[in-house]
């Protein structure tokens, strides 16, 4: 197994690692960098548990090779520091087992940064890429809408 040196910018730090060109970013984050916040749930982009942020856009880290992240800014849930969505997830009881939570939080956070006035349609477009099996999604809706600046009706 041939591994190559690559330098990734993760949560504001340059980290040099050795990985195969075929390794996904998710695998490298977890196995090489010890950042286990991004979770494997399906490894083919269906569930969103591995969602991270790349240059301001949310991305499923199982659908991206580590080598593709070179020269990009990667933010994982470990890189969030007191983001409003984190406290709102607690406040609104928006998680139970917590396994999908890092992915949801990263997706919500990118959405909030990009569309601070997102309406219900935009929220649905973004968040339907993640699966939560514990809540009935109602609490997640309350958490995201409480952070966004525009008023929201029920879906």
């Amino acid at each position, binding site marked *: 197994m041939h591994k190559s040196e690559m330098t990734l910018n993760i949560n504001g730090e340059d980290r040099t690692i050795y990985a195969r060109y075929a390794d996904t970013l998710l695998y490298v984050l977890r196995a090489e960098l010890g950042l286990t916040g991004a979770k494997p749930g399906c490894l*083919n982009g*269906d569930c969103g548990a591995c969602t991270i942020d790349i240059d301001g856009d949310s991305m499923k880290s199982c659908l991206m090779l580590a080598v593709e992240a070179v020269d990009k800014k990667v933010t994982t849930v470990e890189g969030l520091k007191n983001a409003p969505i984190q406290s709102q997830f*607690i406040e609104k009881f928006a998680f*139970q*087992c*917590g*396994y999908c939570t890092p992915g949801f939080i990263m997706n919500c956070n990118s959405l909030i940064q990009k569309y601070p006035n997102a309406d219900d349609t935009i929220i649905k477009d973004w968040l339907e890429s993640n699966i939560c099996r514990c809540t*009935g*999604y109602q609490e997640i809706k309350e958490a995201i809408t409480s952070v966004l600046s525009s008023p929201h009706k029920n879906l």
Partner: protein
Amino acid sequence: MSWSIGKSIYRKEALEKVTGKAKYTDDYSTSGMLHIKLVVSSYAHAKIKAIDTEKARAVPGVRAILIGQPFPLTGEEISDRPPIAFDKVRYHGEPVAAVIADSPIQAKKASELIGVVYEPLPVVNSPKEALLPDAMLVHENLTSYERIEHVYPEPNTNIADRTKIRKGNMEQGWAESEATVEASFSFAPSDHIAMETRCVIAEIRPDGFVVFSSSTQSPYMIKKLMSDYFNLEEGKIIVKTPLVGGGFGGKVSVQLELIAYMATLAVGGRPVKLVNTREEDMITSPVHIGLDANIRLGATKDGKIKAAEILYMFDSGAYSDKGATVSRAAAVTCTGPYHIENVWCDSLCIYTNHPYATAYRGFSHSELLFVFERAMDMLAQKIDMDPIDFRKKNSIMPGDTTPTQTRLNQSTVGNLPNCIDQLKQLMNWKDGQVTQISERKIRVKGVSCIWKTSTIDSEASSGVTVTFNADGSVNVMSGIVEIGTGTKTVLAQLLAEKLKMDINNIHVKMEVDTQTTPEHWKTVASRGTLMAGRALLKAADDATEQLKDIASRVLMCSPDDLEVGNEMVYVRDEPDTFINVKDVCYGYKYPSGYSIGGQVIGRGSYTLRHLTHIDHETGQGKPGPEYTVGAQGVEVEFDTRDYTYRILKAYSVIDVGKVLNNKAAKGQVMGAMSMGLNFGSSETFVFSEDGKVLNPRLRTYVPYRYGDHPEYVVHFLETPYIDGPYGARGVGEIGLIGMPAALANSLSMAAGVDLNKLPITPEVIWKVKGGGG
């Protein structure tokens, strides 16, 4: 004043979970750890003619390859399952080999080079097919298997177990029935889809201790079963369970642990990790049970149910595992929450060539209630009675008996009629069940009543210890697995209430380690709060007694005169005479230097009282403690032209005994409702004619996503359960169990046909209405 009970306390592990620091089994790795990759069957039923591992062994990094052996055979009630298939495969996805290699990539590469030669066999593709006289046998030597005493496999059939309910006099019941309905129901197996796929790490230490880390609901059961199957000393098995990413019953069974143990044994005890892919998690590991059912129900013209005859045929798949227990639980509550004097029920656990079944949230109740509550609507319609009035008239009440002839009282059954009344009001039932809203769209309501008890092992127990820190704060240790239900936070609330102290000074150990955490039987059956709660209250009493004992010698009075509260031990009628808990919880040191006492360690354990096995011929017995009852409803918007629909609102009114954490309880109920609606409307495995699962991935299986959810309306009633902590009843599963029935009732009303198959997709409605010829 309440210190903590009823308050929406945030879960103790909340910060870990929103920062990504929360650790689940697969998040732990050590250098030198080896990785296991399974090879699984591509057939539902076939002889294994040959397995060629030569090419796989040549892959660099491969350390060992396991294939099936005749022994041990495993299973909780009937030992019918080899951990890796031997001689033949009985379901699509069954493990046939396991590769152990240095890296996951090498293991996967080698697994793809293993050649298995199969000779396909005829497939048993449903419980009904399994019961045909000339059906292929899934297990030819059923009688040769070891089994527990209370399971009844029938030789030379595909019946793994049969539970019988014989209550009252059926002849009389039918004679008194002026109207009857008869119907058949079915749904195929489906899956739990916990977001964390199952994972296990195993190693054998040089001193012979076998250490597991597993994403399980049953760490203590792993210990017991591994000891039974592999003849290991139980005390030398340690199971650690960190946070678990959802289970819903799916992580009750012991499966991957068996393979991981054999794997570590094959590589000299080195640590090995086995993590399911999503596809394996869906079909290789056990699934949500399927069902075929027939029911006949009779009532008088004025709506009193007189007779129920029910045949439940559960699709346990290739192995009996928990299927037998599930089918037994269905018999126990077979009639739904109604008082019926004459009941005949046979509940069968049946082998097929489907993935094998285990527990699923609600443990047979959403399944049996779908059948029974649909029949209730059909019968109400036949006698031209309002479906809610019909249900209320037959509600189970204190003084009535269950199908197993247990007499109930207010404490054990709660108040169903009140739940029904509240639901009726919340749903504006008087405005009618059907509202036309446009030329093609209508809004339609449907309901279901619910009840559930938990038929768990009569000797199942739970233990809790509480230890004090020198600052007066308390640690709680319980064998409950924190799987998302928040039970460990509820334990902290119970302790805060009991010791009248600030919950922030109560610390809960989240991880389970069977060597140091007191046993909690299994984290299942909505039993955590009751059993661990009672154990905790006992531990708190024990600690209180010790605190008072030490304080009494400092304050020079009898311990009987003392109270504990506000982190002080004080004289009851002179509270100004006190000593702080922190000054006695590690004993007390007199000015002279003399010391008395030591660290206060409170202990408590609890076992459910007076539970029995049920009689094999009549079903008589008391297999569960209390019931939780409730009434649920669904409102759909239905397109009468293309049969698509949207679920607008879902309602639950549940008698929970006592609300311990309001938002957490509502969250449990809403999440369960979502799961029930998902099961009713879209979740199923699709089987090919040769028994293969065609949709074992999230893209084709279709779990609910954000935006699919309806508006939830959840109300609680509080009729105390005297034996429960502060009166609480089980709440973890109950929100799910009436949802498929309520949905089916609303859609049957909307479509004007009886929809008796799940999931109810527009295509199913179209077919039942005669579409497609």
